[in-house]
């Protein structure tokens, strides 16, 4: 199922699953990721699954590219074992103008009312392709074709913690304050990444299903776990 394995530098394998960004391809990446993680293969220091690639970092003192490549190539994963994760995580989201920083821009660029945008965005099941960039940030998809828009021309220096955004076919949540260029539609008071919980710090994992539902400002401040 891996189309090609090449080296990324001298201490990582670059496993290529093709160029498609869809759930089918991503399932394969996640399956490999989970399988390799379970095996505790000697020398592997990190695994980074993404839409259609899996990067395996290793300790060059323990193993080298050629040896590890052979081991990974020998892993057999049957296609029919690939099943969707049924867990659905519901994310309360406040889309009040105070938090929906880019809804005006979306409204004018997409030629939709604010209400229409939110109707298309909220209460839909999204799939978590990957987490990362910043700790716990989920990359979710796919959003309605009618609300797809590219990133901001000039990214914000600071996107607030908890901001939920969209760009192209994806939705995400800023788990920490960070620079970023996604179109911000609202904010969630839910803590997505919990440093204190080392066993399960991330609320959303690759393969999970995520749904955003609307709450008002009063409910938002009542829950606020991002304070």
């Amino acid at each position, binding site marked *: 199922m891996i189309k090609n394995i090449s080296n990324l530098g001298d201490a990582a394998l670059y496993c290529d699953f093709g160029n498609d960004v869809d759930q089918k391809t991503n399932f394969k990446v996640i399956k490999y990721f989970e399988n390799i993680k379970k095996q505790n293969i000697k020398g592997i*220091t990190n*695994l980074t699954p993404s*839409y*259609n690639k899996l990067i395996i970092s290793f300790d060059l003192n323990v193993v080298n590219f050629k040896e590890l490549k052979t081991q990974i190539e020998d892993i057999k994963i049957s296609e029919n074992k690939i099943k969707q994760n049924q867990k659905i995580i519901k994310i309360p989201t406040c889309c009040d103008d105070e938090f929906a920083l880019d809804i005006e821009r979306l409204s004018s660029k997409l030629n939709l009312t604010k209400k229409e945008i939110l109707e298309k965005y909220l209460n839909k099941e999204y799939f978590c392709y*990957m987490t990362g960039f910043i*700790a716990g940030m989920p990359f979710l998809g796919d959003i309605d074709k009618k609300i797809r828009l590219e990133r901001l021309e000039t990214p914000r220096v600071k996107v607030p913690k908890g901001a939920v955004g969209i760009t192209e076919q994806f939705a995400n949540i800023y788990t920490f304050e960070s620079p970023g260029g996604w179109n911000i539609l609202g904010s969630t008071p839910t803590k997505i990444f919990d440093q204190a919980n080392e066993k399960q710090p*991330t609320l959303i994992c690759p393969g999970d299903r995520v749904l955003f539902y609307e709450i008002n400002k009063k409910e938002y401040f009542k829950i606020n776990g991002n304070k």
Partner: protein
Amino acid sequence: MEINKITVLREGINSTFQDLGRSNFYHIGLPFSGAMDKRNYLISNKLVGNKYNEAVIEFAYQGPLIKIEDGNINFAISGDVKFNLKKNGKLINGDCYKNYNLSKNDEVDIISTNNSVYGYFAVSGGFDLKKNFGSFSTHVRSNIGANNGNKIQKDEKFFIKDFNDKHANKSLKYMNSKIEYIRILKGTNFDYFFEQSIKEFTSKEFLVTKLSDRMGMRLQGPKIKNLKDTNIRSEGLIKGVIQVPADGNPIIMLSDHGTIGGYPKIGVVISADYDRLVQIPPGKKIKFELIELKEAEKLYKLYQMETENLLSQI
């Protein structure tokens, strides 16, 4: 039991606790972190008789001013660092790669790194800190690691686990190499760039800009022109990856890098040259040389042998 405690009178520019880094969390967005210059980190711990993965204070450009609040400490500084000691009220010039004892009210003032970026301050017995996600290494951006994931601040106090001076008089003769050419391997998007640009990338000089920190090193030189696409689908990164965004100025991912990135990768710095790379300060120029994987693996073995050889001399 005697309490050994230090106070930070000045925090320095970017002082954090670091160890060998944190593995197995890339998939949730936590970078490897850890000491930027691994060799100097290992040497500092060995000089004070610590375990190889004990937490030390890493500082950049200017280090902290530390006062011994209570008890005694035994310490060593590695890197290319200018520092003074105030011992019994007397001012002494400090030497790197040498073990010192200090007592209550003495001070160590880490003034600057010379023509380099990072230095390491290790104490015998180690700092009394808590691990987070399997490591002491501080990642400030996600608030993870020792000291609640924060940089070391003025007026903070830290305890030393168990002082002993049985390592006194340990030292090492070592000169940090300052060669500013860095060897790289082809990146996975090598063919995204014009031949002319690749030629320039591997032959011309690139300036290390001020926009460099533990996350990345931004370079300026001939613009690297893209012939395919200035973005790729976001995918995993590792330290040493050289990404080229649309503006044509390369960025090298360093130990605290974001775990996912969407710019084409022109190259990756070889593991053997990473310690040298991170020590090149802004304002200096670097040159890249393209080599093959086999050679990179050989150079790493050599680097590892040299490191072990140095550690065995202590």
